[in-house]
């Protein structure tokens, strides 16, 4: 570990510590925004860990998230809360592994459609099971406060960053970058591409399920249309792309402005939010294909003195 690494780790820990002070401000409004921001930070950062290097766009976040909320909804009366988060983590990872084994041989748009379809499938199955039980949803009545949720999500987001940093330095992370650049080269360089992709796809699956499990008490009442809302999958993709999925901290740069913008749009134009989300998606894809991070890199490259060898 180099000096820069240690400095970055210390700065990150300090930033995390400062963020942890937010609930002490006493403002319910900002705490609520804070919960949304750390939630999307965990989701978008873990999403980008897989989709950033491989360029496989997954729209399955809602499926994993919903499974997590249902773990809490079904288990909070009988099991301690922390164990529910653990169960959600395992279930999310297992579901991601199954999806991965079935779909990661697909590429491009087929993978996107399949993950979206999967999220819908899981939602319909849960709806069906839920309706057979005679109730439309589940009450999640706990004494877990908004501040508790915030701290738990913040810890999760911190863990995602740490995991991402470690993966970025690992052989697995390097393998994924090679796969994203050229899968044929990866195969002929000795990389088991299917295994690498499935392993890394389990990370966002697990994180999204944990996020769902932690957030369930906030909703008080959960039903499939809320827990598995497809909008969530799209929001995560948009935020990660807006920030830039190529860097670990990229999605964070997208999450903060997007959450604030989203809050104001959804309160001012409640009927048009989906439309505006679609427009935002188009604008980002066309104008900022590599996100804010890519834009920064571009500016930095232009500003940097030209490499004499490069011109030779």
């Amino acid at each position, binding site marked *: 570990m180099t000096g820069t690494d240690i400095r970055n780790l210390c700065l990150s820990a300090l930033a995390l510590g400062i963020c942890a002070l937010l609930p002490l401000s006493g403002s319910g409004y900002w705490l609520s925004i804070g919960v949304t921001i750390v939630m999307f930070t965990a989701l978008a950062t873990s999403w980008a860990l897989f989709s950033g290097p491989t360029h496989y766009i997954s729209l399955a976040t809602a499926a994993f998230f919903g499974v997590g909320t249902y773990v809490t909804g079904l288990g909070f009366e009988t099991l301690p809360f922390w164990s529910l988060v653990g169960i959600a983590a395992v279930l999310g990872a297992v579901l991601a592994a199954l999806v991965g084994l079935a779909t990661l041989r697909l590429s491009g748009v087929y993978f996107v459609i399949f993950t979206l379809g999967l999220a819908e499938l899981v939602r319909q199955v849960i709806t069906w099971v839920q309706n057979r039980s005679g109730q439309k949803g589940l009450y999640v009545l706990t004494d877990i406060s908004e501040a508790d949720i915030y701290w738990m999500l913040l810890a999760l987001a911190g863990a995602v960053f740490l995991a991402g940093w470690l993966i970025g330095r690992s052989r697995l992370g390097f393998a994924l970058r090679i796969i994203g*650049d050229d899968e044929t*080269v990866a195969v002929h360089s*000795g990389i088991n591409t299917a295994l690498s992709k499935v392993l890394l796809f389990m990370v966002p699956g697990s994180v999204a399920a944990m996020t769902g499990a932690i957030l369930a008490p906030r909703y008080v009442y959960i039903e499939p249309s809320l827990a598995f809302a497809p909008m969530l999958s799209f929001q995560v993709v948009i935020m990660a792309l807006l920030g830039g999925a190529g860097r670990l901290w990229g999605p964070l740069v997208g999450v903060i402005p997007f959450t604030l913008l989203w809050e104001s749009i959804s309160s001012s134009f409640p009927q048009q939010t989906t439309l505006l989300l679609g427009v935002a998606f188009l604008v980002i894809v066309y104008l900022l294909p590599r996100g804010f991070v890519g834009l920064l890199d571009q500016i930095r490259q232009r500003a940097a003195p030209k490499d004499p060898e490069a011109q030779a």
Partner: protein
Amino acid sequence: MNTPVLSLRNVTKRFGGLVAVNAMTFDVAEHQVMGLIGPNGSGKSTTMNLISGALKVSGGEVLLRGSPITTLPAEQINRRGIARTFQLVRLLPSMSVLENVVAGAVFGHRRRWGHEARTHAESLLARVGLEGKGHLRVGQLTYIDTKRVELARVLASDPKLLLLDEWLAGLNPTELQIGISLIKSLRDDGRTIILVEHVMDAIRSLCDTCVVMASGTKIAEGTPQQVLSDPDVIRAYLGDDDV
């Protein structure tokens, strides 16, 4: 006699009704450079793809040092020690030149990681004539330099056998001389190599033996001098009138 590094035994590949490679049989001995030559569409690249595992064999057997690798997936074949370049150069565009070479050192036959992988990659860059260019993006390289990077990448895992698929194609006359002497220096290191090549100069000066293919079948085998004067070979390249 030592076990050959690579043996093909009646290797056949069918695409539907088309037989692209028909009962190919040959051996490559250690430290030998074998040229796989023949007119366009004769099945040379398909044979390379069958050896490297990019395509599945329809019949017959591929042996690496006597043990079968016929049904192994491509990454396993690479790990056993067969590394290949591609007919059209394939580099990793988001990575630096050095990282492109490190990519070959981490997961393959002989695995290295971290500092060891970087130093190894740096020494290979120097070996192929790219000393000090490790920090460049691959998009900044000249054509022959992209070929050098690919060569360094496949050397990075210390393979038992190198497959070079038209590595010299597309080079201008000056670059061609550089390229030929680079591959000659690999031969002098004792590497075992299969070359698919159209450049006759290169075949004459580099290959210990040649296998000539036409329409998926082996039509001649021997030293370059022998095969290039073989009437069957001349007929395959030039047609009946020139024999």
